[in-house]
């Protein structure tokens, strides 16, 4: 066998290439099975960027379906009002697209609001509980319901099903805890920072 291969260099080269091909083919085939990615990873990445309010303002029943539509059906990235401009920019960065302005048709970027149930008026119908996508409403049939404010995403979905209209969306106003400095207005001369002790002549 060896002598035959040594005598026939063409055959030897062929055999070497074929065996290499088979070996790497087997390796790749194994890797393809062993390390198969479940689903489309880009969908997860898009879903990460979306604000997860599950509000359905984009026209899809939740954030993940919208992410799937963006990934698979070339859906526009400007249909998410809760994500706002920042969300569109993040999506544009992720997908390497141009950032486009928010599609007004699907709503405006509002201040985040939290649902509030006027408890005296609640009749305990559980309709809002069924509508809440994140289980943020607590209550039972014929018992008063209430919203767990820290879990509410402000998606609005509980307002419509309420038969007695006892749910308000209360915008979260800026407080001492949420206040922060704003970028300086380049036009205004009212500048907060006072690092301007520039009277060098008077140096002590």
């Amino acid at each position, binding site marked *: 066998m060896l002598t035959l291969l040594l005598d026939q260099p063409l055959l030897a080269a062929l055999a070497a290439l074929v065996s290499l091909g088979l070996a790497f083919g087997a390796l790749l085939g194994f890797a393809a099975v062993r390390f198969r990615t479940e689903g489309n990873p880009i969908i997860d990445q898009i879903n990460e960027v979306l604000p997860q309010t599950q509000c359905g303002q984009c026209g899809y029943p939740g954030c993940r379906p919208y992410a799937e539509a963006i990934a698979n059906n070339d859906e526009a990235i400007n249909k998410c009002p809760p994500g706002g401009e920042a969300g569109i920019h993040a999506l544009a960065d992720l997908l390497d697209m141009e950032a486009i302005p928010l599609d007004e048709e699907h709503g405006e970027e509002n201040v985040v609001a939290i649902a509030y149930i006027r408890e005296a008026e609640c009749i305990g119908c559980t309709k809002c509980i069924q509508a809440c996508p994140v289980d943020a409403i607590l209550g039972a049939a014929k018992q008063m319901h209430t919203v767990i404010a820290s879990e509410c995403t402000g998606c609005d979905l509980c307002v419509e099903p309420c038969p007695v209209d006892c749910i308000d969306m209360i915008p979260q106003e800026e407080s001492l805890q949420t206040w*922060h400095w704003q970028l300086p207005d380049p036009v205004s001369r009212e500048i907060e920072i006072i690092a301007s002790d520039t009277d060098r002549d008077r140096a002590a």
Partner: protein
Amino acid sequence: MRRIFDFHGGIHPPENKRQSLTGNIQHAGIPGILVIPLSQHVGAPSEPLVAAGDRVLGGQCIAAPKGLVSVPQHAPTSGRVVAIEERAIAHPSGFLAPCVVIEPDGDDEWVELQEAQDYRSEATTLLLDRIRNAGIAGMGGAGFPCAVKLAPEKAIETLIINGTECEPYITADDILMRERAAEIVSGALILQHILSPAETLIGVEDNKPDSIAALTAAAEGSGLEIVTFPTKYPSGGEKQLIEILTGKQVPSGGLPADVGIVCQNVGTAVAVHDAIVSGRPLVSRVTTVTGEAAARPGNFEVLLGTPMDYLLELAGYDASSNRRLIMGGPMMGFTVPDASVPVVKTTNCLLVPTEAELPTPPPAQACIRCGMCAEACPASLLPQQLFWFAQGKELEKLESHNLFDCIECGACSFVCPSNIPLVQYYRASKADIRQQRSDQAKSDHSRERFEARQARLEREEQEKAQKRAARKKAAEQRAAAAAENGQEEDPIQAAIERAKAKKAAQASAAGTESPQDKLEKAVISTRKRLEKAQTKLAEAEAAGADHIEALKTGVEKTRSKLATAEKALADFLAESAPATEPESADPAQAAIDRARKAREAEAAQSPQERARIQLEKLQQRLQKSEQRLNAALAGGEEDKIVEALSASVDRLKEKVADAESATMATEEG
């Protein structure tokens, strides 16, 4: 001689310190009102322990800490709590915050203070508790709870007492070191006892020779080392001072404790001394009042909660020449929205400059990339690069360029030839990044909850499907078993039997109550409910409540329920009555009764129902007649009879058609 290191960058702004160093510390006295904000520190606001109207004594705890990173607040003097309400505080936002408002009575009566004879014999945890209970937050300006810093996870090599005070104008620490050097040394020794570091250093810039002399004298024989180093702004920054004294750099995003160092301000050391040695909580501090709009600038020992305008008055404040009131120094301070806001634990200086002294900066020009800011930056950042990213809101790049290592010292803005307010960009960008992080955390949390809910709904659906499948299987098995036994089981019959068995089981479970008793009970309970509802309605109407409508509908519903219950009882009695009567005695009478009852029943029916019943009856008759006709035809009856039968069938057909149209009309009507 200890080796002194240097940090990158830094600037030499005019110091302007001597204006406020002409005299000693003056006592500001007790103002007419004290406003104690519940949040004077970094961390969670404390919770009030007193109510409006309470009398409080000096040193009494009036607000308890909430959580670990929080400090309590104490009444600075005796008096009455006037209110606990939202008041303006010294914050750049100008927002209101909850405060305890105390009206001092002037007696300055104090609670009994617990003095420590010898703190060295006491447990460290006890000392830490006492420091925490004394409400001590970092006095240098940041206000981080002192006790939290004193309980590091790692062993501490070096304790640094910060007497640098590098920011222009401020002299509160300087005067403290001159006048209370002994207390600083005592406080430092207490901190040393708690942390047991290898060495304790007191760092002072060389522009404070009097302080250095006083401290050296006080620290003699104590083992504390006074280290002096050249003046440069911002050498008083914690990380910068650590680098100057030890040559170590605190890692990015880390704490000094990570490199075995704890840093405390000299003011904090005095507060610790007061808390441990004399048991006095933190109720006052030394504050510098300076600037050209103050005729008598100086340092004041001022009760926390003293309105700033009271303090300014003592310093001969001229509001007309002052452009803005600044809390802190000219580099890192901020404009206070209103002069009535209180002095808090972090108020080291009130700066009241005139327009000539601290002019409004000229409008910002474009960045010329001169790089002076990068040379000045004490954190070795690239300020101009950060500025570009901040303008473009490129938050990720800002983070990767270590924006969070910026100490907001203002050195870059100070040297900027284009007068760009760089620090303001960094502050805003830091806030944006924090906002983005918290939004991301919230959205991750929402997604988890949403996915958990979806999983739960799916699971419930599956369980239902499984149950259905199990029932179907059981039914099939029963059918198969029946087929095996040779009897064809009718599924409908089986269902009826099951239902019957269920009913029987329920009836036996319900006890031996006769149906009549049950109905009577139902009537009585419904009547009671109706009465109750009516009284409630009357009450509501009397009180003019807004749910009258709901109550009214409730009453109506109960009334109709009562009516049906009464009718059911009456029906039952009527049904059971004939059974007891001797019905068979008079069949004619019985037939009449039956007819009358039928008539009555008919009268109770609606026109639609009546029309439909009529139609059905007619159809039945028509069917019968047709059958008879067919039979006659088949049987070969006489022509006459066939004719008569067919005529009657035709008549009936007409009648049916009429009745049909009548039914339709009534139903439509």
